[in-house]
């Protein structure tokens, strides 16, 4: 397990350099006008970024309002008895909800929990696994769909949220199995 991890983390240092150096090198070999190609492709960067803005603003401001309103605390209290049934600690509910909504928000929650419970506590371990094992669904939707102007997202949101919910519960169970 450890060696596999080392190999992967070493490889991860090489991926970007290999792409950045290898692709143009191969392009030269194939007699592609690499500089011209690069500039041609890079031109798009600005338009893509600007295209994302409305989608990102729409998602971020709504989520920020929700977090600032104190609705989270009320939700936590309301869902507390339900969670007990599936063995889900109530302290982790804010994390489970925020994880799909806001990346910076969930990182801040991990920090809060470390300060409150300490790094060794099982709750912090669960929160860290939650943080590390999924992406911020609404951010990904805003950026990826925003870039191509998709507004009707169909089943992307329910599928993403189902996967998130599953990941949150699995995170609690695996950590409990290993450290509990």
């Amino acid at each position: 397990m450890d060696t596999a991890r080392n190999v992967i983390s070493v490889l991860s240092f090489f991926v970007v350099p290999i792409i950045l150096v290898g692709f143009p090198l191969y392009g030269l070999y194939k007699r592609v006008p690499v500089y011209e190609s690069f500039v041609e492709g890079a031109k798009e960067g600005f338009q893509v970024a600007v295209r994302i803005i409305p989608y990102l603003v729409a998602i971020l401001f709504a989520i920020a309002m929700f977090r600032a309103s104190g609705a989270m605390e009320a939700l936590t209290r309301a869902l507390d008895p339900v969670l007990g049934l599936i063995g889900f600690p109530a302290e982790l509910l804010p994390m489970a909800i925020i994880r799909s909504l806001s990346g910076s928000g969930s990182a801040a929650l991990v920090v809060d929990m470390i300060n409150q419970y300490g790094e060794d506590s099982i709750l912090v371990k669960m929160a860290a696994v939650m943080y590390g094992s999924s992406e911020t669904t609404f951010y990904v939707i805003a950026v990826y769909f925003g870039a191509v102007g998709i507004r009707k997202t169909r089943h992307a949101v329910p599928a993403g949220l189902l996967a998130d919910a599953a990941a949150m519960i699995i995170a609690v169970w695996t950590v409990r199995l290993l450290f509990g």
Partner: protein
Amino acid sequence: MLNYIWAGLIVSSFVFALGYDVRDFAGDRYRNGRPLPVTLSFPDGYDPAARRVPVEIRIDSGQYGSFYRTEQAPAAAYPGYLLQSEQGTQLRFAAGAKLPEPLATIGKVSRSRDEELQGRLVGFTPPAATAGVVFEPVRFVKLNAIATAALDFAKTGAEIAIGLIGVLALFLGILKIAEDSGIVFALVKLVRPILRPLFPEVPADHPALGMIALNLTATVFGLGNAATPFGIKAMEELQKLNPSEDTATNSMVMLLAINTASLQLVPPVLLLALMGTQINTLIFPILTTTVLGLIVAIVATRLLGRLRGYRASDPHRNPPAPAGVEA
């Protein structure tokens, strides 16, 4: 669904904010307009002529508790100073003081330019040590907070997008070289057997599969910076196959689901920074969770795609009427 979630977030934040504010108002939580008893002592002596007198502020925790009806207790003493002005005497707590609730919230409203909690001093006849301090009235804290949060994050949204420009340009440029030199095509042939079952709508030789492969590679190695441009490029390729302009195809939903499940073998850098060496014990649970999450994401996308409503909205099944032909 996103329409409802989005509107739900906004409406519920307003409802909850208003609810909390009405509760605070009805319970007179901030004791607006009434003086909080404090005891002052002057370490440098009291000089009535001075505009600014350093002072040590003591708040009795029993009095504090009954005044604000709270369990929280203030610290033994706070440094601060008196400011004499034509409007009377101001009492200011030094900035950065660790204040108990609800004083901390009051301090966000009743504050000086230097972010000090400030209030009007009443019943103060020097050199007597006891006095009362009246703060600015605090109203609608939560409503104010949601408005501020909305404005702040609208700005953040634009900043994130603008911040992406450089990285996007870099990787989109590199990808253009990859396209022109045939790397993408070679990659397509390589990953076709694995990715084709997940993206059956994509023609076998389409560059979209190559972009998806690059996106997934970058994700697996925890390279968020590179994964995003590759993912966006993959979306653009999928959009070229999309008969509709604004409706997601099944392939797009699949790509999105895989990205939100985020299969990564290298834990995020931020988590590494937060957890330190603890992270080593967490690699295995993170990996298990992310793999199982990915499986759920793929299965959920497939199954939900079969529901009647989502089948009806599939642009490949029901292509939109070509432009110019009005129904």
